């Protein structure tokens, strides 16, 4: 049975989509079949990292939610676009599917205006795993704690909370951790992102773990290299030796348990 991995943060701008994309690819490279659902329906964005031409998306996730198509028809195989630094296919025999949300204003406002049955979304997750024979389904959530985010947390086997070392994120993460505990998420990890290089990393890790009583899977330094690449592909494929890529690898191994 495939596992659901939700990547979440209390506020936006934590680098959530970027980390999700890099993690999913990293896990796929260990010969796993992987799917990524962009449930950030209000502000979708992860497709940009996979170089997906939005005009060519036949069925976004929205179509499934409106009952226009079965969930597997929303899945795009993005594996061929994933190249390593030598330009070779990066995931080999494994597959990475992306389930994008529509970035069309009309579709987005319809979701906001009419809402949808979050139960349908959950059925979609379960069907994706079964029908695409996935080992891992990654869910890129909308920041905050709205209904679909709570659902994603509730059905997760693994929840990764991303935070920056600042006051608002510390407070919001405390709320999210408590909520996740009440939903009995089996595996919960924290990732501290955008840590300024002049911070004492060991101290940050220790303090975060003590405060939340949750293991820190990785601390990612604020990196100009990452900012420069921003939306231009999968960072860890292009920079395999970079400290951020090394840390991403560590989180991936936490997920796969290797």
């Amino acid at each position, binding site marked *: 049975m495939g596992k659901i991995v939700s990547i979440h943060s209390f506020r936006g701008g934590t680098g959530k989509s970027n980390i999700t994309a890099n993690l999913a690819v990293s896990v796929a490279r260990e010969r796993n079949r992987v799917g990524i659902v962009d449930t950030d329906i209000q502000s979708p964005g992860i497709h940009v990292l996979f170089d997906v031409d939005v005009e060519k998306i036949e069925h976004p996730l929205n179509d499934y939610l409106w009952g226009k198509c079965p969930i597997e028809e929303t899945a795009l195989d993005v594996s061929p676009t994933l190249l390593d630094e030598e330009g070779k296919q990066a995931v080999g025999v494994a597959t990475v599917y992306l389930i994008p949300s529509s970035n069309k204003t009309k579709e987005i406002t319809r979701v906001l205006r009419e809402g949808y049955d979050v139960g349908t979304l959950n059925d979609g997750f379960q069907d994706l795993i079964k029908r695409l024979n996935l080992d891992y389904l990654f869910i890129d959530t909308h920041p905050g704690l709205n209904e679909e985010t*709570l659902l994603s947390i509730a059905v997760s086997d693994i929840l990764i909370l991303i935070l920056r070392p600042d006051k608002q994120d510390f407070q919001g993460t405390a709320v999210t951790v408590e909520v996740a505990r009440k939903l009995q998420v089996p595996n919960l990890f924290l990732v501290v992102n955008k840590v300024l290089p*002049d911070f004492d990393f060991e101290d940050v890790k220790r303090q975060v773990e003590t405060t939340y009583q949750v293991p820190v899977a990785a601390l990612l330094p604020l990196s100009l290299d990452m900012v420069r690449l921003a939306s231009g592909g999968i960072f860890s494929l292009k920079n395999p030796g970079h400290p951020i890529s090394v840390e991403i690898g560590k989180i991936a191994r936490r997920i796969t348990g290797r």
Partner: protein
Amino acid sequence: MNQDRITIEVLERFISLCKEFAVGHYDRVNELLDLTKEKEHPKLLSELAESFGMMIIQIEAREFRLEQIIEDLEKTKKELEIAKQKLAMENIELKNELRKVRIEIDHSQKAKDVAEITETEYFKYLQKKAKDLKAAKE
């Protein structure tokens, strides 16, 4: 009588050599070795010179070893002093460079926010859903 005078002369030479050895001067050790020649000196005297000669060699070897140990210790002491200075410098740099994070949680605000989310019907439905899913997987 003549023989006694010679013996006294030899003994006096012996005493003067011992005085030099006592203060760590071993340059005249060859003169001591001359006294070991049995044909020229009485047997007892040459045996005594032989024992003294052996003693000097052993003392000299021991002194040489001690000097080497002292030299090594001094070298190590110097290295330790350099390492200590380097460590002190690095500590000063670390203190100046690394910022510490301060995590403050407003617990009453947190409790309020958590309650707002978890005391809804939807949340209770989710809790049940999560439980069912886990049970189904097991």
